[in-house]
């Protein structure tokens, strides 16, 4: 705790108080406080949906809060209406996916929107821009040809260019202690690049503050001075990084309290004997190492691991979105041809994607059309699609899946996230899939709808559908699954049974994950 007291001697550069942000149906932030002190690296951690991204988006003016105040170092209340305003106060963000314009060169991106300082006789002087670009990039220790288009440089260089741009802009606006927000900066980097990044961040601390967001708790604990933990859009606690341990932090992020039957464990069924999915020696270069596993009838198998552990890659190979380098996938004993989504669907592999708005359903089509999309063949009468059969089928599955929709012909875009997700599930249910890959099925869905989605998942299991699932939280993984496969750095490191009443605790599993 002594460290925290020391911290209070430092000046704050920005203070956010009582920040509340409400999205339709979800309270993303509930009266959150957050301060950044000068010359520090502060780690901002929390599970998916805890509100980290929303909080930093408000800090850079990308989103506006419904309530709360933002105060600058001078005690002045500031309104951040857009990123352009935020950068004038020295607040900038390096995004997960680069925010540089791909067709412009490094130099052009560095000074975008601030070119006029380089004007000579009405024209921009490329020479003086080049010189300035080189000296700006010197600060982050990269040497590149500044005329290279951004689309041709590595993610590590892009990141450094973004950092350099933010530093340069803060200097331009005479901000003594800029705030750099880094959202998952290491997901795109390899080990040595990661090390370089953190060395540079420690250097930058002399002249700036850094807000670090990362799934990799270890790197947050190792590289921050202070850690702020959010959960369900609320402050949990903050502590000096030197006092923090990874497992303790993880527990604080997850929270202890949750209702006994939150994931409807009571409805958990034991899987059948028959093997539905058999994955043999499957591998993809630089994504995951050869992996073998099976999923039985009615079994829920959860893949857990950090972002980058390779679990997403495995799922994409099963659904045919990606082509594996080696190995084969058998469904009901029949080999699937690899890398073909249509073949996978035809064989009976369903996929509930994380990005349901873009991949899961056709938002501009009606609920009924979406539900019927895969079974149109069976809804024909005399060779033509029968509106009567279509309505009948849609009605049946809408009732069965508890989709709350004003009518059969409501556009999917107008449904809530939870009901959209239920529509996606209904689509697969009606098409009699054998195996379902669920990619974060409760992402961005409110508590009530979560409950109903859990109910549906149990029902799917009871009907004998095998499932491969990746969840938002470890708790959810444990609660839902019959069996868990832990992946780390592209390898399957542990297999755990999760039978009813004998579920492992999160802390048992975290050790394998990190």
């Amino acid at each position: 705790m002594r460290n925290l007291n020391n911290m209070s001697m430092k000046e704050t550069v920005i203070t956010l108080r009582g920040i509340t942000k409400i999205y339709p149906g979800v309270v993303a932030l509930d009266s959150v406080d957050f301060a950044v002190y000068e010359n520090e690296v502060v780690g901002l951690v929390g599970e998916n949906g805890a509100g980290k991204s929303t909080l930093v988006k408000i800090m850079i003016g990308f989103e506006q809060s419904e309530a709360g105040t933002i105060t600058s170092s001078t005690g002045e209340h500031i309104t951040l209406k857009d990123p352009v305003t935020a950068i004038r106060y020295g607040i900038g963000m390096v995004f997960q996916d680069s925010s540089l314009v791909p067709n412009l060169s490094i130099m052009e991106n560095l000074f975008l929107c601030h070119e006029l300082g380089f004007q000579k006789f009405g024209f921009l002087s490329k020479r003086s821009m080049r010189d300035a670009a080189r000296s700006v990039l010197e600060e982050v220790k990269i040497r590149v040809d500044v005329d290279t288009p951004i689309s041709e440089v590595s993610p590590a260089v892009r990141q450094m260019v973004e950092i350099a741009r933010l530093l340069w802009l803060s200097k331009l606006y005479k901000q003594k202690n800029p705030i750099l927000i880094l959202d998952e900066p290491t997901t795109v980097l390899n080990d040595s690049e990661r090390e370089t990044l953190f060395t540079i961040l420690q250097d930058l601390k002399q002249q700036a503050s850094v807000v670090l967001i990362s799934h990799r708790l270890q790197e947050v604990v190792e590289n921050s001075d202070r850690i702020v933990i959010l959960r369900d859009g609320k402050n949990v606690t903050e502590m000096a990084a030197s006092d923090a341990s990874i497992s303790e932090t993880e527990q604080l992020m997850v929270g202890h309290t949750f209702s006994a039957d939150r994931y409807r464990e009571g409805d958990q069924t034991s899987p059948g004997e028959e093997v539905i999915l058999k994955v043999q020696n499957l591998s993809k270069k630089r994504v995951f190492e050869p992996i073998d596993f099976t999923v039985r009838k009615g079994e829920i198998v959860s893949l857990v691991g950090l972002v980058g552990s390779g679990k997403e890659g495995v799922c994409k190979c099963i659904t045919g979105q990606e082509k594996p380098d080696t190995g084969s996938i058998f469904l009901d004993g029949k080999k699937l041809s690899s890398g073909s989504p249509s073949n996978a669907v035809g064989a009976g592999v369903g996929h509930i994607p994380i990005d349901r708005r873009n991949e899961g359903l056709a938002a501009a089509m009606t609920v009924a059309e979406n539900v019927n999309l895969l079974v149109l063949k069976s809804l024909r009468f005399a060779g033509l699609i029968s509106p009567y059969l279509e309505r009948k089928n849609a009605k049946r599955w809408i009732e069965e899946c508890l989709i709350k929709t004003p009518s059969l012909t409501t556009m999917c875009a107008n449904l809530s996230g939870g009901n959209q997700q239920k529509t996606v599930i209904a689509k697969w249910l009606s098409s009699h899939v054998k195996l379902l890959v669920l990619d974060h099925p409760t992402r961005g869905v409110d508590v009530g709808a979560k409950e109903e989605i859990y109910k549906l998942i149990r029902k799917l299991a009871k009907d004998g559908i095998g499932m491969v699932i990746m969840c938002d939280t470890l708790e959810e993984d444990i609660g839902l699954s019959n069996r868990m496969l832990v992946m780390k750095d592209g390898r399957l490191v542990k297999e755990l049974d999760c039978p009813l009443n004998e579920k492992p605790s999160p802390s048992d599993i975290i050790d394998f994950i990190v």
Partner: protein
Amino acid sequence: MRKRILSSLVTVGRWFRRTGVAGQILSLVIVIGVFAIGTKGKYLALANLQVILSLAGIPAILAIGLHQTIVLGAIDLSVEGVVGLCIVFVGILMRNQYGPYDVGLWIIPITLGVGGAAGVVSGLVNAKLKIPSFISTLGMSWTLYGIAIYISKATTVPLLDHRIQSVVNGNISGIPNIAIIALVLLIIVQLVQDRTQFGRYIYAIGGDELLAKQAGIKIDRIKIIVFTIAGILYGLSALFLSTRLGSAHPRTGTNLLFPTITASAVGGVALTGGIGGAKNAVLGALIVTALNDGLILMHVNPYVQEAVNGVVLVAAVALTIDRKKLGFIK
């Protein structure tokens, strides 16, 4: 000495790669080479080269205007309507056999103004009303064309003021004036693209509009200006087209859209936006003109020539767009 030549060659090579015209110059050389052989040298006769340059002038001016809308990530299909309307103004206001008016050389700012006004409207409809440029400019084209025919009653008006005509058809030491005008415009627009903030913003918007907006670029203003420049250049082309013929007829503007878009695409202006400049547009116009001229000299059936142009357009787009980066093709 050899070292110096080598290093300057490397510099030239790098310049080509960076400016993105290496492929276009190569295609031009190939086209010229093939027809030079095919016509047993007739193609390379001075008179023919002059014809190519003078024919390429107007498509080049149109493409200098149109390609910038493509670089923005939009497109401008209003060429034919704008040119048609401008020509009607020429037919009414220049000294002619039927009408009472004679504005003399004031016709130059008037046609440029009419074209520019049409461009402002296209830009406003696209940027402010948020109507996709494909639709807004297509609608614009038909609207203006309709107005042009209605006003002119589709009559042909012989012009009696030949001052502009003599400039358009003249030449300076063998080089057609129209080609020189196109070259001057090319230099100005290219310089703006390379060396001004405005130029930089066009490319930033074409590269990623959302990012450009976040960086603080006033997107709407840039879009409107780009459409306006395009309109002004269509107005200029309209003036040249009608005075060159010595008569004003609104249908003179038809069949201009296809060659202009083909020129931009062949020149290497990516239809996904953000790539290619004025030099690409002009080279594209030159390649397309050289190709058509060669086909004529080889006595290829005119309908086959049209088919060849169609194939060239699709092939050029296939080569300039990195389709791997596009999720879906619509």
